[in-house]
């Protein structure tokens, strides 16, 4: 099954993470711990997560997490640090997934911006969500538009609305907003 296969492949990404931030990741996660499905406050990327924040709120385990499809509408929820996104997308690309959409969410209380990637598969019903938390003061994430050309517009749109910078994007100009727009209307603190 595609779901199991892709879950395994994505899980491998997490094994590499501890190399960078071994302690934080290893301690934080009991593997496969059942977290409440689709917590709005998405877990932070392990290496960004400071120890004191971990103590404050329960953090869902890293690693691809199967969700209840009937309740949420997708199968696999994968929270990743920004630099791992490209690797994850390459895995999905190898398995012939297609990109449904990219969007952002502004978690202003946590001072974070979330980027959400929705993937789907043409042959099997297997929806994979990738998400990554970015620092709200300096939201940067590598582009995937060289892997999925369709991501080009989605990333531009996300940049329009949230000001998230996709590094390496060929043409990060306003798409839906006027050419000279310098505002990001979907930020929660946006005032017209």
């Amino acid at each position, binding site marked *: 099954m595609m779901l199991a296969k892709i879950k395994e492949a994505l899980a491998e990404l997490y094994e590499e993470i501890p190399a960078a931030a071994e302690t934080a990741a290893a301690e934080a996660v009991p593997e496969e711990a059942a977290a409440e499905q689709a917590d709005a406050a998405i877990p932070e990327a392990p290496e960004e997560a400071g120890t004191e924040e971990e103590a404050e709120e329960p953090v869902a385990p890293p690693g691809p997490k199967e969700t209840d499809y009937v309740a949420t509408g997708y199968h696999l929820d994968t929270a990743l640090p920004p630099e791992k996104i490209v690797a994850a997308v390459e895995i999905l690309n190898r398995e012939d997934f297609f990109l449904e959409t990219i969007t952002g969410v502004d978690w202003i209380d946590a001072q974070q911006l979330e980027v959400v990637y929705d993937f789907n598969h043409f042959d099997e019903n297997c929806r994979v969500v990738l998400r990554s938390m970015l620092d709200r003061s300096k939201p940067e994430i590598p582009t995937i538009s060289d892997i999925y050309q369709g991501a080009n517009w989605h990333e531009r749109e996300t940049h329009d609305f949230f000001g998230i910078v996709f590094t390496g994007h060929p043409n990060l100009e306003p798409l839906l*907003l*006027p050419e000279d727009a310098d*505002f990001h*209307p979907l930020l929660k603190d*946006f*005032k*017209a």
Partner: protein
Amino acid sequence: MGTQDVQPPIIHFASLDKILSLGRANSLWPMTFGLACCAIEMMATGASRFDLARFGAEVFRPSPRQCDVMIVAGTISKKMEPAVKTLYDQMPEPKWVIAMGNCAISGGPFVFEGQYGIVEGADKFLPVDIYIPGCPPRPEALIEGILELEEKVTGFRRWPRVEAK
């Protein structure tokens, strides 16, 4: 209004003027210019059941140079505003503007506090002659709008007015 930029002629020939305005009123060529939902109803008005052609107003010209009336059918976004203005300026006099639908009248359902994208009504930057409310207006309403514009041009109403019961 529509003819504001034209110098009034020095001499008036009453009956000639009347013929001219009759000619103009019966040959209102709209622009093929749809912005949003209302454009579909505008197309429906030109199509089989409603047939705007009966009043000689079905010649939708794609070039503004050959149009007499601009039907602003839909929401004008701030990005679109300069283009609409240019199109209006490119039309030769005499010209008229019909604001079709709530968006063109006032911004319609897209006005809310903190809105950043739309122009709240075509009359913010265009001299609108006829307003047709509705979201979108029915084709009958657009036809009534055209007749209303004819009345405005000629000064009298050729067709009976339908009163609300």
